[in-house]
């Protein structure tokens, strides 16, 4: 790719090319004089004309799309404006967030437990964890949610007592667990199977020597896990977990399978079917989902930074050489500054 305007990067760099050609002849091959320094290279920057052209085309296309969308009737922007801050919608948005938080918290705790179980020496414990993962990863989450919706049909009462005897206490399942919590359980149990694999990968990534050092200091297995292994595994665990949270936020829209309809998606659909205008309400839901995922991405960035403590060069500044050609910021993604897998010796 030769650029027409710049020509090939010039060979002579500056008028002061003195030290190089003339100086070399009488210098020994190995110099011990640090004062005799070659001057800094000042090459002409490589040009990227196609990047600029492509960026220009993209900008034009986006502008055209926005202008068109703003005028298009079907988007129903008036209804969008009317419902985006509607109290029913913001309440539903809160429900979606709560579903996400509760199910992720349970999933992470359960996932860590399952991961530790899978790494256990006890074959029974290992087997139980394997069976769990097999079932919950092997069936679709939508189907699992439908099943949870039928929980009360399958188990109409919850009994406490000795098997085959008259129960001491008995509850109607419907009275004890409402639909919201069925949704939480359904999402959490499914998610924990995936979290278990993420946590397991994190634990396995920690150097065996860490375990040995802690053991040699007289720390118990649990202390070693809690204070030494898990904190280091976090560096590996956090980025995919952030992705899982974001993914969970969107998966909550499937709770309609239970059926639970007070989340963002369900509520929006209910309103839309009343006013016969689905598209603006879908946009409303999307706007809220996007707001939350954006917030989560920011949070993820800071969490990652915190857990890369002690890995060194965390303060290194991001060099800006990719941005020098054009003002198109789309290619620079600060969240990608993941810690490199460097080995400490």
């Amino acid at each position: 790719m030769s650029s027409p305007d710049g020509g090939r990067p010039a060979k002579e760099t500056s008028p002061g090319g003195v030290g190089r050609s003339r100086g070399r002849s009488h210098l020994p091959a190995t110099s011990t004089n640090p004062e005799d320094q070659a001057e800094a290279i000042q090459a002409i920057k490589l040009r990227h004309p196609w990047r600029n052209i492509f960026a220009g085309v993209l900008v034009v296309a986006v502008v055209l799309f926005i202008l068109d969308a703003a005028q298009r009737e079907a988007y129903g922007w008036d209804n969008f404006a009317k419902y985006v801050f509607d109290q029913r919608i913001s309440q539903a948005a809160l429900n979606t967030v709560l579903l996400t938080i509760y199910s992720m918290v349970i999933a992470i705790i359960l996932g860590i437990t399952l991961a530790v179980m899978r790494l256990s020496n006890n074959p029974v414990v290992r087997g139980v964890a394997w069976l769990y993962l097999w079932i919950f990863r092997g069936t679709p989450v939508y189907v699992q949610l439908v099943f949870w919706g039928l929980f009360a049909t399958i188990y109409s009462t919850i009994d406490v007592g000795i098997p085959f005897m008259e129960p001491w206490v008995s509850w109607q399942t419907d009275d004890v667990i409402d639909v919201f919590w069925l949704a939480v359980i359904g999402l959490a149990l499914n998610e924990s199977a995936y979290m278990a694999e993420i946590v397991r990968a994190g634990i396995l990534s920690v150097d065996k020597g860490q375990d040995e050092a802690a053991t040699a200091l007289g720390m118990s297995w649990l202390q070693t896990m809690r204070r030494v292994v898990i904190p280091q595994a976090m560096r590996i665990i956090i980025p995919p977990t952030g992705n899982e949270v974001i993914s969970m936020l969107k998966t909550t829209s499937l709770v309609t399978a239970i059926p639970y309809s007070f989340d963002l998606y369900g509520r929006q659909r209910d309103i839309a079917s009343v006013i016969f205008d689905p598209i603006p309400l879908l946009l409303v839901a999307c706007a809220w989902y996007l707001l939350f995922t954006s917030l989560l991405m920011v949070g993820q960035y800071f969490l990652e930074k915190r857990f890369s403590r002690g890995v060194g060069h965390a303060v290194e500044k991001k060099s800006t050489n990719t941005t020098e050609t054009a003002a198109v910021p789309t290619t620079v993604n600060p969240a990608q500054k993941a810690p490199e897998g460097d080995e400490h010796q």
Partner: protein
Amino acid sequence: MTDVPMVRAERVSKSFGSNQVLKSISLEVKKGEVLCLVGPSGSGKSTFLRCINHLEQVNAGRLTVDGVVVGYEERDGLLYELKPKVAAKQRQDIGMVFQRFNLFPHMTALENIIEAPMLVKKVSKADATARALELLDRVGLAEKADAYPAHLSGGQQQRVAIARALAMDPKLMLFDEPTSALDPELVGEVLEVMKDLAKSGMTMIVVTHEMGFAREVADTLVFMDGGVVVEAGDPTEVLTNPQRQRTQAFLSKVL
């Protein structure tokens, strides 16, 4: 010195599957003594060291530390496997320093040192910190208390690792090739700390390739090869006048 040896190995054997790594090792380390283990790699030195700390389990023979069987409990002439808790308790008294330091990278030098005393011995944070600073000073790193391992040189990391082991007040220190992963320039500072430690009367077992150190500090030098003790004795004696052919061959290459 009391009559009970700090470490006593009686015909100790260890196999990994069909691979026998230790073949009937017998040796004794008295209290306050420094023993250096030398030999080619794969000769079982490190494995033996790890057995003393019960990081590996012995298959045959008897290994005692300060008169107590390692990793098992002896009742009515029978050996019982130890509960992990009890095994952990045994390890508290044995400090270990690793070839690759194994500092906790997410903790500062100071946090590395106070972690185990606080967690295992339930020492208060203030007491643990005071003691840690003292130890850091002893290994010449008082000003590095707040540095993370990644920002320390190899020699400094290893000195922190030694301080970390000392913080548990061990009665025995095991060194597994403590200088093998270091740049030649940094070996000296670590050996210096170890010499001081030996002078202070600590019982030490050191797996090393530093013959100069062994000659200077060790009370006994043991040469191992192929999982057996080939030769043992006064270090100067063994180094200058080896009796066995295998020892001669090895020393002619490393000295």
